[in-house]
């Protein structure tokens, strides 16, 4: 009887070499045939939805996820088709993307840059996602956009409003449909002038991160152009919950407008505190004191309750819009979930459709082909009127809504009223505008 002796180490070594040898041809063949990261194999394609499922923006993340599920249904030819029926491009046929059924994986950004990068990385490397989309914070969007650029997949940003996302931190593989701080300023300024006059003193409270900084800069520039004076700008930590110590100095500053460059829980708390301190009843030199919240969201408005009434702000989209695209989307979303979609849901749904359409028009999932198809793409029927995906910075240009907290809501969803639909021409800017300067798109990266 012979006895074969093999050490544990030996088995492991042989196994590893054999494994690597077997894996190598597949790796090489995938790369050499497709030439880009995560080329879809078989009859399905995987998209990665990276949304905050925990942390302070979890509710927005949940709404984004609902929108993505709806978009996947519509792309696969299920449901009523939603905005596919109103979209000006007819490249999508309701049979998936390029005939491949759309599947998806989800990740949790936790609204933390490192967690968001980790979940995006996992979806790209483990699940084979060919596109990453979602998010509810500019810090996260910029971090994930950078990762997707390196990995060679497309990033379709979710809710991100910082100028930097398509400004100094723009990337060739990244695209933003949502509007930005500059656009909020440009849209709000004329309304602020007509409502509050051109002789005002503004006091800014600003969330201390990329989004807050760029929005403050944008709003200050737009209002100073009207003749307003910026009395002060105080940066507040993102983790702040009680703003009373920040509100109290406003009372003695001589300012007659308070601009809250806050979002999410920050906004709910700072606005509530400002109202508690009686700012809205105050008269300064014969002028009524006013509060402005430049970036509004209906989900946030719900958190702020009564305090939001009469307050002006801007938003990317609102469910009460009466164009055919918006109506189709609200109908489809409302029937499935029982309540109207948020602006976060809208932008995420639209981004998914735009990506799928670009792939269909390009005839390829190759990121560079998709980039080419999206750059300079003009479309309509997705809820904001005629829209352009500008080639120079991958930012969408479309109408912006100026809204006000409704005085007499008729339902729990009816919190904002549209004051003005600011036409696209009024919110456009040159690609080399100083607020967006400092970065370059670079070359598209197909990865692999």
């Amino acid at each position: 009887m012979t006895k074969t002796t093999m050490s544990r180490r030996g088995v492991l070594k042989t196994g590893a070499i054999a494994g690597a040898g077997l894996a190598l041809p597949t790796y090489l063949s995938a790369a050499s045939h497709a030439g880009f990261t995560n080329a879809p194999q078989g009859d399905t394609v995987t998209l990665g939805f990276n949304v905050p499922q925990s942390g302070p923006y979890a509710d927005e993340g949940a709404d984004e996820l609902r929108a993505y599920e709806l978009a996947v249904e519509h792309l696969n030819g299920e449901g009523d088709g939603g905005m596919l029926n109103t979209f000006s491009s007819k490249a999508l046929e309701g049979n998936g993307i390029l005939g491949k059924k759309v599947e998806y994986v989800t990740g949790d950004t936790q609204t933390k840059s490192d967690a968001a990068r980790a979940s995006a990385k996992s979806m790209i490397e483990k699940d084979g996602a060919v596109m990453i989309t979602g998010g509810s914070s500019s810090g996260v969007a910029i971090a994930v956009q950078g990762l997707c650029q390196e990995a060679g997949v497309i990033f379709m940003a979710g809710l991100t409003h910082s100028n930097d996302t398509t400004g100094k931190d723009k990337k060739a593989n990244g695209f933003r449909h949502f509007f930005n701080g500059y656009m909020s300023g440009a849209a709000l300024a004329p309304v602020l002038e007509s409502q509050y006059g051109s002789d005002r003193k503004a006091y800014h409270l600003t969330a201390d991160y990329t989004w807050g900084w760029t929005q403050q800069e944008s709003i200050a520039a737009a209002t100073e152009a009207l003749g307003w004076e910026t009395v002060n700008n105080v940066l507040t930590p993102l983790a702040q919950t009680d703003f009373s110590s920040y509100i109290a100095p406003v009372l003695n500053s001589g300012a007659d407008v308070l601009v809250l460059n806050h979002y999410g829980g920050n906004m709910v708390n700072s606005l509530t505190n400002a109202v508690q301190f009686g700012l809205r009843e105050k008269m300064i030199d014969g002028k009524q004191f006013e509060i402005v919240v430049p970036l509004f969201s209906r989900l946030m408005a719900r958190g702020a309750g009564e305090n939001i009434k009469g307050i002006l702000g801007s938003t990317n989209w609102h469910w009460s819009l009466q164009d055919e695209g918006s109506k189709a989307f609200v109908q489809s979303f409302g029937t499935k979930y029982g309540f109207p979609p948020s602006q976060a849901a809208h932008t995420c749904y639209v981004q998914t459709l735009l990506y799928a359409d670009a792939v269909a028009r390009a005839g390829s999932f190759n990121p560079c082909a998709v980039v080419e198809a999206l750059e300079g793409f003009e479309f309509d029927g997705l809820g904001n009127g005629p829209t352009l995906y500008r080639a120079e910075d991958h930012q969408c240009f479309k109408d912006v809504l100026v809204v006000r907290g409704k005085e007499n809501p008729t339902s729990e969803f009816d919190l904002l009223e549209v004051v003005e639909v600011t036409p696209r021409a009024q919110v456009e800017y040159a690609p080399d505008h100083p607020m967006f300067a400092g970065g370059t798109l670079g070359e598209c990266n197909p990865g692999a």
Partner: protein
Amino acid sequence: MDAIILQILNGLDKGSAYALIALGLTLIFGTLGVVNFAHGALFMIGAFCSVTLAKLLNLSFETVDPTQKDFLGNPLKVKTPYIESWFGPEVGATIIDWSVPLAILFAIPIMLVVGYVMERGLIKHFYKRPHADQILVTFGLAIVLQEIIKFYFGANPIQTPAPDALSGVASVGGAVGLNIAYPIWRLCYIAFSLLLIGGAFAFLQFTTFGMVVRAGMADRETVQLLGIDIDRRFTIMFGLAAAIAGLAGVMYGPINAPNYHMGMDFLVLSFVVVVVGGMGSLPGAVLAGFLLGILEAFASTTWATTTIPGINQIIIYLVAIIVLLTRPRGLMGKKGVMED
């Protein structure tokens, strides 16, 4: 002058919350010897008691109003709270309006039970374990409680407004020539916490139960040798500490809308308060709570933040370091607490 008084008031009202939480922490630490990291979660649960009561009071039935349309163009379903149909629209609306003060009554039994269950069900098993184990298990518990609340109530803050009658601003100091407008509810909060703190001290000082508890805090073994079941009393104290934290949370709701992580926001600072006040010292906890609240308010003024950027973020920790360097047992700490 006005600005200074305004910041003192701001400090007092932040300090009230710190003092109430720190008081409960110290009570638990002094009686049971447990460092309870789940105490912030009790504060948060208290706030959510008032959210729950508001939801219960707003339970509604639906009637279809064919004259109005909902967002999909279907006939609008109008919701009427049961309470308004039982007591008439006016009385019903008043009850709903006063839901936060009513939540005080609602929260007391709930918090006592939560405290009792927490102590008997989990923390009891960790008395003989090292402090590190106690900290880990209570911290874990805090995260679990927080996630449960998030599951049921969502991640966004939920408004619990003060009654209309108490939600305006009051003019403070008019008699002495000052003109300060301060929110009425925040004044109520300061008054309420002073009452609660006074009540807790009176209970410990002037009742037989309180006397036994104080004796137990001083020398547990001797009290037990006298045939007194001190453990049962300490469990009740845990429930009481939970109730104090819970009530602090209920009343805090109208100041800042409750959300699931509000407990964590307060917890770390409250521990600093306890340490600065002196481990195991009840008056120390209260004093340090108000002192640090006021310091934090002044550090957040524009003058302070422009002179030393970021001072508002670190002031409390800075003071803690200085106090611990100069008075290692805290402001009013006694010898022999947490020292072997």
